[in-house]
């Protein structure tokens, strides 16, 4: 089923039923649908648009009680210049990037290995392992913050990148997603390699993984977005300004800049930009990925 969703989810208008309807009958309903869809879309773009307009205002115009989409003293990039001069946004972006990349890489490696074992190898205790992993999906991360913080203190990892990275690499739901995908790969493909005397590891690396690229990409996207935007745990695990991730750093800006509205919005936009740009380029893959991994939690 997983692969079916994968293929269908992006096939767009060609499979959608209404297209095959007689044109005449549809047009009124379709126009209404376009109008409503467009109204929602406009509403959904307002926060972005208003943030952008504010970011390009002078602080005086931004704080003026006469609210305007076109500022009286014209648009300016002053707020962005200020944010770059005084702020740590590039550093925080880098911190977010390398911690999220590390989290994604480790998650992919350890999850696909265990998922392969659960899917293909008959070993003692497999059922118990599977049950424990599935059961652990239920543990909500906020429950762990207190013991995890204490543990990190004991390990002297508070205020290091390790504290951000290590606890975030466990995604039991993703193990389950990968296992389900591996289950669908025909065993015959591996049997030839077994005949040649290939080791489990070689079969996994050379036969199974290449066939699993779409699901690996989906899991990577899901994990990366989650790590990039995670707030609570990095907020607890780090205090050192040079270690903050983008979401946590932004929280400190809010209190530091206070009523510098244009600078607040410029910072928010700069923080939003990386993932939005990535999304514009990889829209299909990201949507596919979210649609396949999204229901995995249940």
């Amino acid at each position, binding site marked *: 089923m997983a692969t079916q969703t994968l293929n269908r989810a992006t096939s767009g208008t060609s499979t959608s039923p209404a297209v095959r309807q007689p044109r005449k009958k549809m047009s009124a309903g379709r126009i209404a649908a376009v109008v409503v869809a467009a109204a929602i879309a406009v509403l959904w773009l307002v926060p972005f648009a208003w943030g952008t307009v504010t970011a390009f205002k002078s602080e005086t115009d931004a704080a003026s009680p006469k609210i305007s989409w076109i500022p009286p003293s014209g648009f300016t990039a002053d707020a962005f210049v200020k944010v770059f001069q005084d702020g740590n946004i590039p550093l925080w972006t880098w911190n977010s990037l390398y911690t999220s990349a590390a989290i994604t890489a480790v998650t992919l490696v350890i999850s696909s290995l265990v998922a392969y074992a659960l899917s293909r190898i008959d070993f003692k205790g497999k059922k118990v392992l599977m049950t424990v992993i599935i059961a652990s999906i239920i543990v909500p991360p906020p429950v762990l913050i207190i013991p995890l913080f204490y543990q990190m203190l004991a390990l002297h990892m508070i205020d290091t990148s390790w504290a951000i990275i290590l606890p975030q690499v466990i995604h039991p739901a993703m193990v389950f997603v990968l296992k389900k995908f591996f289950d669908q790969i025909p065993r015959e493909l591996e049997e030839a390699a077994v005949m040649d005397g290939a080791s489990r590891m070689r079969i996994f690396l050379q036969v199974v993984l290449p066939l699993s690229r779409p699901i690996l990409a989906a899991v990577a996207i899901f994990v990366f977005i989650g790590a990039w935007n995670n707030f609570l745990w990095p907020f607890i695990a780090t205090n050192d300004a040079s270690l903050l991730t983008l979401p946590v750093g932004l929280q400190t800006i809010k209190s530091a800049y206070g009523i510098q509205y244009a600078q*607040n919005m410029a910072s928010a936009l700069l923080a939003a930009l990386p993932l939005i740009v990535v999304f514009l380029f990889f829209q299909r893959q990201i949507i596919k990925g979210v649609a396949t991994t999204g229901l995995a939690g249940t």
Partner: protein
Amino acid sequence: MSSSLTARRSPGNRVSSPAARETRSSVTRNNLSGWGFATPFLVFFLVFLVWPVVYGIYMSLTGKSLTGANDSVIGLANYAEAFADADMWRSLGNTLYFTVISTVPLVLVALVMAALLNVGLPAQWLWRLSYFAPYLLASTVVSLFFTWMYNPQLGLINDSLSKIGIPKIAWLNDPNVAMWAIVIATLWWTVGFNFLLYLAAMQNIPAQHYEAASLDGAGAWRQLFSITLPQLGPTTVMIVLLQVLASLKIFDQVYQMTAGGPGGATRPVVQYIFETGFTGYRLGYSAAISYIFFGLIVFVSVLQFVITRRRSA
């Protein structure tokens, strides 16, 4: 690891050994390689998930504090205190209230969005982009956007409302309104996720169903109510479950936009856990509240599991 596994599988060994020994050695081999493949995950799993869960239970039975004052085991005293703690109940109530009033729009609006697109609108990518893009933002970005729009004097929302004669609303400062303001921001932020799940489910409905219906003369609306929606039953149950579990974990937006205020009117239980532990330094007590919260999550999951099972049975 891989090299030792390869050595065990040497073909010479396989050919020379009798059948019985062969199977026994292949069982051992499977056990070794199975646990070998599982080990890297298991190490992280045990250290950073299982251990904290278990140790947290122990902590909840102690008077542990960040000041290191009292580490001794005090039994269930923390739990007894929590159950008598009005602030704990209030924060738990806020979490439940948010869960109820956020889940409904987060599921319904997502369904409407997906149903609209499923009619076969042109420029699918454009709609998907605008509905889903907010989901890619960090909570802090969302909070900055909305705090600014909710600003009572300078905000876009009050300004727009005043143009149609609605008086200024103190969105984040009015205890009767603040939670709704959080819900609106949350709806904008995460509805795109549910929307994508619905869209994928709708596009999985076999086209023959619609063909048969249109031969019978059923219009688009008729088809929506007689084919699409009934087929979405199981998907809706899943989405509601996921949404309830996500809403119960509410913390980021509230902490960032209202800090739990005004006067604790929006403070969710996760924030109470956070504050008890990190501003009140009472780790043991905080752990106890964490497990009461965990109990709630388990209860909801089991409840939903039972309901889903009954539906599908």
